[in-house]
């Protein structure tokens, strides 16, 4: 077994690196830069039952060491994803994590049931940051009971393991993580974006047409590291860590915090080659840190045995 290999529920990964959902489309664009089979896994763009155009533009704004996005879950809909996007990805030797979104419990269930049956979908990632229309727009991801119920329902219909993608916009991430673990989640993805805004001082209006958007990039890494560190010590399911990863040192930091794999989001926009570059740099980094295997680092910031060597 290679020193980079990690084994997560449903995802047998050559290495711990995957692009994060929404930051890699369905892979087509990046396939022009490198062979997608090099990746540990791919998290595809959020899929909803129906096609969605998403929010009006501008949809992105830059912030210091970060960016805001309010794409609004634009995607071609479940049918097109199954018919067109997933078959194209089947050409690569890489497990797929299908990000599932919706505005009602039923939407999630429909998408989860159907998409989990596709041969090259190896796991689902429930995007619980979406506002629940029926519950007055409150995000599924802010109330542990609601998130747990959603997890349970999706687990019931899914043919593959289910990861729940946690939103950082809450006071107590540990309670949330435990609730979805208890509801049957096979793993966690964290973190999604922090809710933010920027105002254009000349137009006096928010830059984003949607007013608010999700903050990602290096700016949020400390929040992500803190949450992974807290949650990994409180749950028994693996964590896909993300938020601001740009360098191989960032990857190590997430592993030490307690992530079993690491997703790279915004950095793909800055450097389309970032994922293969990080994968290439990992072995030397392991040597430098005196680690035989990526797995020796997981949770190393709090696991005693790990710190001793």
């Amino acid at each position, binding site marked *: 077994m290679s020193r980079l290999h990690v084994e997560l529920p449903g995802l047998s990964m050559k290495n711990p690196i995957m692009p994060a959902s929404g930051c890699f489309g369905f892979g087509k664009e990046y396939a022009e830069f490198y062979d997608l089979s090099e990746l540990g896994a791919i998290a595809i763009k959020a899929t909803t039952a129906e096609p969605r155009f998403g929010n009006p533009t501008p949809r992105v704004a830059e912030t210091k060491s970060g960016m805001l996005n309010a794409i609004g879950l634009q995607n071609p809909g479940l049918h097109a994803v199954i018919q067109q996007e997933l078959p194209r990805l089947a050409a690569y030797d890489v497990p797929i994590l299908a990000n599932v979104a919706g505005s009602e419990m039923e939407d999630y269930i429909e998408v989860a049931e159907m998409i989990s049956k596709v041969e090259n979908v190896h796991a689902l990632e429930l995007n619980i940051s979406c506002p629940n229309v029926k519950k007055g727009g409150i995000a599924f991801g802010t109330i542990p009971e609601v998130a747990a119920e959603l997890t349970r329902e999706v687990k019931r219909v899914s043919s593959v393991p289910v990861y729940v993608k946690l939103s950082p916009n809450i006071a107590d991430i540990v309670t949330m993580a435990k609730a979805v673990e208890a509801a049957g989640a096979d793993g966690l993805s964290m973190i999604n974006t922090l809710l933010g805004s920027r105002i254009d001082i000349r137009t006096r209006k928010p830059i984003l047409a949607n007013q608010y958007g999700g903050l990602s990039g290096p700016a949020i890494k400390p929040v992500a590291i803190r949450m992974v560190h807290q949650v990994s010590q409180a749950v028994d399911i693996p964590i896909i860590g993300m938020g601001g990863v740009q360098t191989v040192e960032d990857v190590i930091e997430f592993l030490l915090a307690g992530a079993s794999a690491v997703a790279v989001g915004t950095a793909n926009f800055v450097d*389309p080659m970032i994922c293969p570059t990080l994968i290439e740099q990992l072995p030397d980094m392991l040597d430098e840190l005196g680690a035989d295997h990526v797995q020796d680092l997981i949770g190393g910031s709090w696991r005693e045995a790990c710190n001793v060597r």
Partner: protein
Amino acid sequence: MQKKRGTLTVVAQHEIARNIFELTCRGELVQQMREPGQFLHVKVDPYEDLLLRRPISICDVNLETSEMKMIYRAEGVGTKRLSAKSDGVEIDALGPLGHGFPLDAVQPGDHALLVGGGIGVPPLYYLAKELVKKGVEVTAVLGFQSKQDVFYEQEFQELGSVYVATVDGSYGVKGFVTDAIDQEVAAFDVLYACGPTPMLASLTERYRERKAFLSFEERMGCGIGACFACVCHVESDPEGATYRKVCTDGPVFPVGEVVV
């Protein structure tokens, strides 16, 4: 897999009008810049506080010397930092990206009208050169705010007729590019334009039935089609889920294809 990312070395940088900079760079990547109207997605510097790349049009290309020019307005923090780069500095660029102006829409002997507004002028210059090379007659109508903002009038003059409009009337025709077109331009076979949205909107209204190609701007994330930041509606389905991406389907679209 064609290489779409490279390092460009600054060869020269000049302020050619008020806050308008002409940046000349050299690099291997230039060999791929064969389609006028494409753009580069530029990382202003290696520091991470300005996280995103900036889209800047390719203004001129010299395949023999592997040199290319960009022209940009130093307005925000990124373009201001870019304007401080001096000779020898290396710039990380992604590109050439997108679909440019279709050259096969004109025949030798045809008359092309090029309409540029402000910082939309630059991509038209490379286009004008390629059109002239092809034997197409070129007329350029360039619009600016004021006399101090005018640039590249001379350069376009070497390729065809040029009419300048300024909003405040301090130079050329007073008013917008459309005023200059009305006063100065008789006929044309094809229209190519790049400029601010109101300009594109009024050109669309006027020339919807003509052979016309417009270059659009939108805030971008990836620049390569992956993030869905730069999406616009199409006229045939203005409220629906059909879309075009400015970064990959555009920035140039036939008139009437996308909602201005």
